[in-house]
């Protein structure tokens, strides 16, 4: 039981100017569950997508079951017996379970034969599902199960799961691991990508930890404990740049109130909070629950129940820059004019818009060849500074940010943080959603953790936020 199933050596990968992976090695054995642990953005998914042929490495080598290979596409990897379940499901929702399992095959499609193969997988692993149901009618636990069944039906013996428990209840999770254990016991190899310490501790045989694209730890589970894994994931505590409470004079006036507002769709329990001038409210959440709350605050989604009182002027930085914040083909001047375009009347004062865009470019250190270049010509960090500058241009009393430093390098992220702090110092109330705990600790005055049971508040301390998130996930 010590045969190496998946072996990656010296893998490096750059995206633009960002080092996603730097000389990472990883090896997982047959018959075991191997946790690939790390925080969001540590490079776990990138590494496994390279093994699965979805991404191409810049350097390094890959071997499957002892045979060196060079997967150029998922088809190569599948042929070698590697299967991957992605965080976003890769099922065709309009089709049935059997059709999804058969997808990619040749010859006749015989629903009865596919159903028999699904039943076979069920006998081997205990994973069962009705082959005639449509995927869109399945819950997320069943979809997760179907993804795994589909891979096993294609005779994979290496199974990569990307954050499989993110969408599962605790009961579904324990059922999943029972089944994964059975698969491993039969000689299969499972790679479990996760950022949840608990999953690794409770279910894995071995663990590899990545931090910021680097390989930091490789161990048998019996040799590590919660503390050693935590410090491996987080590294030495980041230098304390965070503000001591009270360092910024917070004016105690209420800028906005959120009163049990819900959108009427897959909501959490209603909850309420107030936003004070000059405070930075960090928001943490495990799933997409935070997005609805933020967009209701930003007046982009109308609440179905409850109420929200916000100032008329709100800055909003949506998560997806290229899709939601900027029109890539528009010039910076035009993108500046987008703000409040829905309520503007009469003639657009283009000279004023150009002046506004120019002042954003200057004040927010946006590197651009003037206000007339298209937004697509800017780097990600400059785009984000431009969006932030646009939204802060008229000193809104409230600014809502969704993961504003996602995909930015360290310097660009630091400059976004500095701008946000400046705005807070001038009295803007800031709602700052981030999927990065360190960032929340660094930037927030207090942190709101949103889960299906509502919202809980924490001081900007890692331990306490982490505990609330763990409770939320349980």
């Amino acid at each position, binding site marked *: 039981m010590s045969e190496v199933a998946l072996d990656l050596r010296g893998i490096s990968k750059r995206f633009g100017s960002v080092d996603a992976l730097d000389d990472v090695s990883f090896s997982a054995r047959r018959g075991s569950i191997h946790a690939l642990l790390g925080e969001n953005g540590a490079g776990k998914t990138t590494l496994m997508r390279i093994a699965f042929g979805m991404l191409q490495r810049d350097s390094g080598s890959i071997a499957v079951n002892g045979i060196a290979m060079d997967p150029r*596409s998922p088809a190569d990897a599948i042929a070698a017996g590697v299967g991957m379940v992605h965080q976003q499901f890769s099922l*065709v929702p309009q*089709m049935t379970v059997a059709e999804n399992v058969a*997808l*990619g*095959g040749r010859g006749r*499609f015989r629903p009865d034969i596919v159903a028999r193969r699904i039943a076979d997988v069920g006998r081997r692993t205990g994973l069962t599902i009705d082959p005639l149901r449509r995927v869109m009618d399945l819950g997320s636990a069943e979809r997760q199960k179907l993804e795994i069944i589909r891979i096993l039906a294609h005779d994979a013996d290496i199974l990569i799961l990307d954050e499989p428990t993110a969408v599962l209840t605790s009961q579904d999770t324990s059922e999943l691991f029972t089944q994964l254990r059975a698969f491993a016991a039969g000689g299969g190899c499972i790679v479990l990508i996760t950022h949840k310490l608990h999953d690794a501790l409770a279910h894995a045989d071995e663990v590899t930890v990545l931090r910021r694209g680097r390989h930091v730890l490789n161990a048998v589970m019996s040799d590590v404990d919660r503390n050693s894994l935590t410090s491996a994931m987080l590294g030495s505590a980041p230098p304390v740049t965070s503000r001591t409470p009270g360092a910024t004079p917070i004016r105690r006036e209420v800028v906005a109130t959120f009163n049990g507002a819900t959108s009427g769709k897959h909501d959490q329990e209603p909850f309420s909070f107030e936003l004070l001038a000059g405070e930075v409210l960090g928001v943490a959440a495990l799933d997409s629950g935070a997005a609805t709350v933020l967009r209701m605050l930003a007046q982009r989604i109308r609440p179905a129940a409850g109420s929200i009182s916000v100032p008329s002027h709100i800055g909003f930085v949506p998560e997806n820059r290229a899709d939601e914040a900027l029109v890539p083909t528009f010039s910076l001047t035009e993108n500046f004019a987008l703000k409040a375009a829905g309520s503007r009347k009469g003639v657009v004062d283009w000279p004023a818009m150009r002046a506004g865009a120019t002042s954003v470019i200057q004040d927010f250190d946006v590197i651009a060849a003037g206000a007339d270049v298209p937004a697509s010509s800017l780097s990600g960090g400059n785009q984000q500074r431009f969006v932030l500058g646009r939204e802060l241009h008229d000193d809104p009393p409230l600014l809502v940010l969704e993961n504003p430093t996602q995909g930015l390098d360290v310097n660009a992220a630091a400059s976004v943080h500095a701008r946000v702090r400046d705005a807070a110092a001038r009295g803007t109330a800031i709602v700052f959603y981030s999927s990065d705990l360190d960032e929340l600790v660094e930037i927030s005055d207090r942190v709101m953790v949103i889960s299906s049971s509502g919202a809980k508040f924490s001081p900007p301390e890692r331990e306490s936020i982490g505990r609330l998130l763990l409770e939320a996930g349980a």
Partner: protein
Amino acid sequence: MSMLEPFLEGTVRTATPLAFAALGETVAERSGVINIGLEGAIIAGAFGGFMAAGTGSVWLGFLGAGLAGTAISALFGLFAIRIRADQIITGTAISLLALGITATLYRQIYGSEGAALSIPTMGVTEVPVLSSIPIVGRALFAQPPVAYLLYALVPAVWWWMYRTNAGLGLRAIGEDPRAAIAAGIPAARFQYLAVLFGGFLGGIAGGVLVIAQAGSFAEGMSAGRGFIAIAIVVLGRWHPLGAAVAALVFGAASALQYLFQAMGWALPYQAFLALPYVLTLLGLAGIAGRSAAPANLGRWQDQH
């Protein structure tokens, strides 16, 4: 019964070319490609069929019709699939192109007045026994043989689409190309083949007009049937059997005039001509909300 028979025969007659075109377009659209150039495939098929049938063989005529429709659709595919130009505009241009080319060639070859040349036409072949079924017998089984081809083709396309892995792959591309590609399906190649198949059947539809019905070619004789076929695909809810039924319903709406005449009801004949389009619009509004349109129809998501 004498009142119903002209109505039913008119229904099947109108429905036959539309069913061919709609069946092919159903396959194309299930792969996520909407080919507005179908009108062009039909007129190209009509002209190609006219030329080829001039050799004396009606079946060669249909082959020529199918190939002409395929050729014009290959051009559509080159733009809409290969370089991912906008499908709607490409299709509109292809229709315009085919209408222009066929008119130009026709005038060049046969003179600008286009002497009404007649070609060998496909006569009616009665199916023994079946054609003597009361009421519907003659309408369904006293037809030019090409119509009987359709009776086999509709279930065959259904079988291919729902009972082969290739058909499964085709439908997956139309719904979610990313998932399909992740499963190893060559999406662009499938789409191209689907468009070529749609073009071939569109060409056959044109051939039916010329060889089995009119007996000669006329400029613009497709008369919007390509667009109607696209609406029929929607009304048939992107299903091969649905397309056949919807084509019959459309044919029936068009043939209502025979029934009304027989009843002695007077309505302006333009009302009958417009009725199928109005019914199509009402039908489209009626099935909305429960629409079965392929999720990726008409657009293309670039890969990561």
